[in-house]
């Protein structure tokens, strides 16, 4: 809610001309989220400081939010209805106020000091409280600033106390000799980028605002991708469009790096080009093809990676994906474009919400079921319920199970703990085989094992796979 701009240019009070604010007055402006004040705590020949103080009215914050479509912000709580940091921390609200009260200065225009507006000045910017995701230095230093970002402690407590440690906020000071307009545009773009929680609905016209404010510096900024994405609140289509326009401005541009996939293990290195997830999917598809199944279940289908492969194969006449997460199913539905498939195809593929710890009559009568990277998401005490519902109740002729081989984890550099935060366990080969053999014998199946992925002499393959085949009655 506060930032100050100081210059030691002589006469320093020319800052008032550049900002079009008389240093000996208190200026107040009504802005959508409260009142913005411009004040001058120092106004001397050798040093002049302008402060922009945004007095946020939390009630108006609520009203402004209610009227517009909600954007699901990454830090949704930062916008919590009653308790939030907006009245205190610099954010997009402060950037908005800055744009409103220093409009001509942002454009580099000055009626009274036109040459000074085009010249560089010794400047010091202070933002006492800025919510800062990532490194402020990485964003400001390439622009010619010297950056001091001091983390603000969460509380004044002894070490080891639950409130010990840093808060997500920093006290930011920038010093450098820059044009005032550039300095203000940097702040206008980068304060919300560091905060990374836009409080308003990001409309396509935000692209124009970004390009205008970033003119002359953004297209060559090494972090332009991050800046663009965050500024546009992670709306991919908008970010792509903005980056395309930026690239046209930057002759040295190379292709922007591909999106970081959010799939599990996507960031784990693999030796060959094919990712482990792809190898695993191919291995499962191969087992299903060998089994002769035509009616198949993908239990715990997630966003439908395997279903996509099965749909392409005409041999499968009935494909059902289940997941307990309706959000995952929603994404699968979109990814597989199920609302656009022709009517004949529609009966082939179905998504159902189901939970593997409950019996589900709908799952009976299938030839094969796949549990690909599913069992490790189930708490061990609940596994017997899963076994009863899949092997006992649904009871297809073939069941394919894959799960990580924990012995291989040592080969992943930098991997500490389990491969995914939701994994409830990761088994050694012996543990998996013990479970599979016991489950098979309890429910009248024979089981065989294979590995998926690059094999290590000692550790085996990264993924282990078991094929259960029902014994003839």
């Amino acid at each position, binding site marked *: 809610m506060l930032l100050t701009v100081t210059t030691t240019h002589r006469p320093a009070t020319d800052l008032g001309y550049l900002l079009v604010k008389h240093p000996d007055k*208190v200026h107040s402006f009504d802005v959508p989220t409260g009142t913005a004040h411009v004040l001058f705590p120092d106004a001397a020949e050798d040093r002049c400081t302008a402060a922009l103080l945004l007095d946020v009215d939390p009630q108006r914050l609520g009203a402004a939010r209610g009227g517009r479509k909600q954007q699901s912000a990454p830090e949704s709580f930062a916008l919590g209805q009653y308790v939030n940091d907006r*009245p205190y921390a610099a954010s997009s609200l402060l950037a908005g106020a800055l744009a409103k009260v220093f409009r001509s200065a942002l454009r580099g225009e000055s009626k009274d000091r036109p040459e000074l507006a085009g010249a560089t000045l010794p400047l010091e910017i202070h933002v006492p*409280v800025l919510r800062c995701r990532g490194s402020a230095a990485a964003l400001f230093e390439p622009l010619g600033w010297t950056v001091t970002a001091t983390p603000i402690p969460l509380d004044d407590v002894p070490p080891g106390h*639950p409130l010990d440690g840093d808060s997500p*906020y920093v006290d930011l000071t920038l010093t450098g000799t820059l044009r005032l307009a550039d300095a203000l545009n940097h702040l206008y773009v980068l304060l919300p980028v560091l905060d990374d929680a836009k409080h308003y609905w990001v409309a396509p016209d935000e692209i124009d605002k970004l390009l205008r404010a970033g003119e002359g510096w953004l297209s060559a900024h090494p972090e332009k991708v991050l800046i663009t994405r965050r500024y546009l609140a992670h709306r991919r289509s908008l970010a792509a469009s903005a980056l395309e326009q930026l690239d046209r401005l930057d002759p040295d541009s190379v292709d922007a790096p591909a999106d970081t996939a959010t799939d599990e293990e996507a960031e784990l290195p693999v030796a060959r080009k094919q990712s482990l997830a792809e190898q695993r999917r191919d291995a499962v598809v191969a087992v299903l093809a060998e089994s002769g199944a035509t009616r198949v279940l993908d239990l715990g289908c997630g966003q439908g990676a395997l279903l996509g492969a099965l749909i392409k194969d005409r041999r499968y006449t009935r494909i059902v994906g289940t997941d307990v997460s309706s959000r995952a199913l929603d994404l699968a539905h979109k990814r597989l474009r199920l609302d656009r498939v022709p009517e004949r195809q529609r009966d082939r593929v179905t998504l*159902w*919400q189901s939970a593997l710890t409950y019996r589900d009559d709908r799952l009976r009568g299938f030839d094969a079921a796949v549990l690909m990277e599913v069992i490790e998401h189930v708490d061990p005490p*609940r596994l017997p319920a899963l076994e009863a519902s899949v092997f006992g109740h649904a009871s297809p002729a073939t069941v394919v199970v894959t799960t990580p081989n924990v012995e291989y984890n040592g080969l992943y550099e930098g991997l500490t703990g389990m491969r995914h935060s939701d994994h409830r366990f990761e088994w050694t080969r012996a543990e998996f085989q013990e479970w599979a053999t016991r489950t098979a014998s309890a429910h009248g199946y024979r089981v065989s094992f294979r590995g998926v992925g690059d094999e290590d002499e000692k550790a085996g393959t990264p993924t282990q796979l078991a094929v259960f085949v029902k014994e003839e009655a």
Partner: protein
Amino acid sequence: MTRIDIPELALVALVGISGSGKSTFAGQHFKPTQVLSSDYFRGLVADDENDQSASADAFDVLHYVAGKRLAAGRLTVVDATNLQPHARAGLVKVAREHDVLPVAVVLDVPEALAWERTQGRADRTFGRHVLNRMHRDLRRSLGQLAREGFRKIHVLRGEEEIAAASIRYEKLFNDKREVTGPFDIIGDVHGCRAELETLLETLGYALTRDDSGRPVGAVHPQGRTAVFVGDLVDRGPDSPGVLRLVMGMAGAGTAICVPGNHEQKLARKLNGRNVQLTHGLPETLEQLAREDEAFTAEVRTFIDGLVSHYVLDGGKLVVAHAGLKEAYQGRASGRVRSFALYGETTGETDEYGLPVRYPWARDYRGSAAVVYGHTPTPEPEWINNTICLDTGCVFGGKLTALRWPTRELVSVPAAREYYAPARPLVPVDTKPDEGLDLADVTGRRHLDYGYGRTTVAAENAAAALEVMSRFALDPATLVWLPPTMAPCSTSTLEGYLEHPATAFADLRSAGVGTVVCEEKHMGSRAVVRVSRSGAGDAIWTRTGRPFFDAERNATLLAGVRAAAGKVFTELDTEWLLLDTELLPWSAKAGGLIRERYAGVGAAGRAALPAALSVLERVAGRGLDVTELRARLELRATEIEGYSAAYRAYVQPTEGLTGVTLAPFAVLAGAGVSYRDKDHGWHLDLADKLVAADPVLFTPTRRMVVELGDPAAERAATDWWLALTAAGGEGMVVKPYGGLGETDAKGRLVQPGVKCRGREYLRIIYGPEYTRPEQLDRLRQRSLGRKRGLALREHGLGLAALDRLAEGAPLWRIHEMVFAVLAAESEPVDPRL
């Protein structure tokens, strides 16, 4: 007058040519809703009752509606000509699908009369030859009806007989709902006469004997009735003796008996059929050969007269030899009889060559208890409101009886093994949690939970399913979840949003006289299940998740167990379910506090002084910023108040050191819900836990208040003010009578309303909420939804405890617990 006997539940097909008076007859004898007329259905699908081209569709719909009626157990009459075999076959099929008897009522009038009537109707345009053909069809049909499967055929000839006919409804043989017991239901006897005598005597029956000293009857002084689940004979030493006793009791009306598969086979043999002489039948035949022929004839008559299952005690009890699924109860058909005698098999055989039985009990969801035998098991065990009483007496096990309605089990051991079992006796291989079906919890569900009715939306169930299956404990452990709690009505006192005055007013208006004000601990709600043995102990959060890792949970629970020793003894229970708060808040919610609360505090405490120092310098330059300064100074005070509020609930903990539990209610013990106990009782037990381990347990301060006594209310208000001034969250005001407290109309009242402190609420409503304009806005908050939710969840929770106490099947408890979680879940799209 011709009397037509029709079973209470039947599909009645009227048969007759056009103009024979079927509709008139139906209108005279049945309710309009019982009669499905083909004309009407033709009209429904084709806008024309006489459009014969619409007949196929019309009958499709008619059969569908008939099916729905029969599934619900409603008599259904089909008013159509029904002259063609294929038309009648469709009706017989619908009847069989629902295991009801098809009945034909034929109206046979002279063709001339029918023609006269037909000509009198403007909408009938067919010629005489059509009627002529119909009449021929009718003549041909008469001889075929029985063969087609109609179990009762009534032919009414001529106008007069039709006019004079009257209908009498007869009960099905299996309908003994009016017989209410009390009963002693006895498992498979298999010729173990001596054990049966001992069991009957143990149950209090006085045996009567014939001249040779053989028992021929038994009477209970309190008029109890014995019920035999069948398999009286075969394998054992004295099948005739058992038959003689049971036949005597049945004849005298002191016993009811359903047949077992062994009786069935014996009867076939006695009736001269060729049956395999296996499974102990030869022994029985040998024993019968020593009896006179008259006895054998008596046995044959007795068995032939047995009805395969009974519905007893107002429909609350069903007895069948091999059990009976809900859809077959009170129905009559070949497959109902077959199920009752043999059960359902999967078609497979096990390693001993015996048929694999389909675990129908696992799927059973009926409200009637089903008591049966047939499958030997070492111990009888209730599974989904069904119990098998065959404890393998003839195999050297024991003979077991179930007392009804008290559900007490009484057994006598076998004197010896009379027959070697083909496979060892093993417990029924249905584990309780295998019994949970997705259909028990998902979709839109209407629940009548005894304290009210509610509908769980499919959207909420879908959301709860994810939490329940991914994060919660095993449903077998998770027998209760705490309900949400409503705040007291909004206070209009200056500066307060919540205040004891409105809390007291709320309870007073609900008709509550005495309340207990309990200190509200600010931590994490924790439900603790703890037992003497430690088996099955657990501690879970309000959404059913475990608190800590397995090791820490075990340590914590061991501490509770040690402290609860005396309480187990005092309440004479194997286990206890405790409602507690786990403290400090930061032990479980540390991450949340850092992310959600402390960051805002840190930002405010850094930003406001920085802004104030700017203003100070501006003021130093002679500019007037008084107003702005005052506003920011107020903000600075508010953010300090806010910070102090959350800091009060943050304390360092190291492992479990520093973690304590504040118990405030003892919800249940083995076989009992403590909903009727008052809060004095609950808190007294809590105090005993605190006394036993003052480190692990934190006491709950409290004050009992007689509502309407101004001095008492004032004292409680002062107490609340002191409590909250010292950083306390506030208090919960509960009806003193306990969890089950109801109002004058017998409806549950809120189990408590929370009344939170002025400073504490800054954490909820923001640092600045105490400003008059903000308070005014917050006072508009609507509490209705929260109150409704709180009351509903409370009722669902009590129902779960009741069901737990009465030993209800797991799915019945789980559907309540799941409904609480669903009520607390944000709805998601359930369509996928």
